[in-house]
């Protein structure tokens, strides 16, 4: 297929971009963002709720079957832990909310 003169004129010119070399400059001046939480206000994070932990040996782990029972390190009255990225940020108690599990916050862990 031949290319007409007018089509050639309409075709944008494309060429490779070449970045300039980075000049040697030290970071200076006031902080650009500071601790502005508004910037990340809409960022989604995922909380995880841990009911309790236990330790088993590898041998016990490999022998687990249906109806095997392990005892957790919590009394039934102890709060559960709410974590963000593996760090406990709050504690609370399991509740039923509609037909789902929920957790009522009882303590916020100071950073």
């Amino acid at each position: 297929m031949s290319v007409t003169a007018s089509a050639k004129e309409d075709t944008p010119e494309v060429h490779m971009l070449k970045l300039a070399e980075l000049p040697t400059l030290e970071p200076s001046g006031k902080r650009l963002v500071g601790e502005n939480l508004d910037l990340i206000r809409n960022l989604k994070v995922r909380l995880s709720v841990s009911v309790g932990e236990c330790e088993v040996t590898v041998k016990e782990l490999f022998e687990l079957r249906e109806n095997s029972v392990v005892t957790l390190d919590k009394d039934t009255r102890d709060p559960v832990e709410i974590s963000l990225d593996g760090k406990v940020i709050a504690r609370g108690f399991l509740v039923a909310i509609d037909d789902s599990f929920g957790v009522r916050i009882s303590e916020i862990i100071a950073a």
Partner: protein
Amino acid sequence: MGVQAYKLVNRSERERLAGRVQEVVRAFIARVTREPAEAACTVSALGEGEQIRSDPKVWMVGTRSGMTVVAVGLSEGWTREFARLLLGGALAEGLDAAGLEAVGELGDALLQECGAALAVALEPSGTSPEPPLQWERGSALQPGFAGQATMMAACNLGEQLPMLMVLGSELVLGYLAGDTRAYPGTGALEPLRSAIHSGSVPLEVVAGGAEMAVGELATIKVGDVIKLDRTLEQPLTIRVRDGQTVGTVFLAAHRGRTVARFTTEH
């Protein structure tokens, strides 16, 4: 016995040796794991100046010019890294000194077999010379390549040819779950099995989670209720603390304690 000087002059020779090591490695893996040996790894020839690939299932055999190392470095830190590679994070962290020693012995055994096979393969007469290798723990530790844990052994095959072996593989998970009676010849590795079986694994029961915006999270206060992504009929997840899911459980109370009963429901 005098040690003959060897030279690997071309790629085909390196590939021949890599092939020989692959046979040894596969035989070793077949002895200690349930994994099909063919799937466990491949051994490639590593040419002068070539990069070591960051694939744990590709083992490489190569030479490095100017190397004068004659020892194998297996420090405790190294064996921990190797154990993580073999067993996963949680199990490796649970290993005590005896377990780490057993892991190191596993690495030693494999490397020595590889080294001996190389020595035989390099012997022009085809007879078996004394393996011209010196193995020593705790020195000449080599860092991992390409950001992954690797097992490295450096030795001299003769006076002219420093040999570097870089090994990285998920090796013994199948073995751990296996029945040693079905694998005669695994007796030498029993200390590893025993050490690992008596190691402890931290488990955690998770009642689910919730996704929310940072802005919303910042306003949470005592008394607020967060709805989780788990219905009351669903079992909860129990996992190894490093994130590997073990199964599902229902919670119950027993003598004032919270207990978790395993189920096959999901």
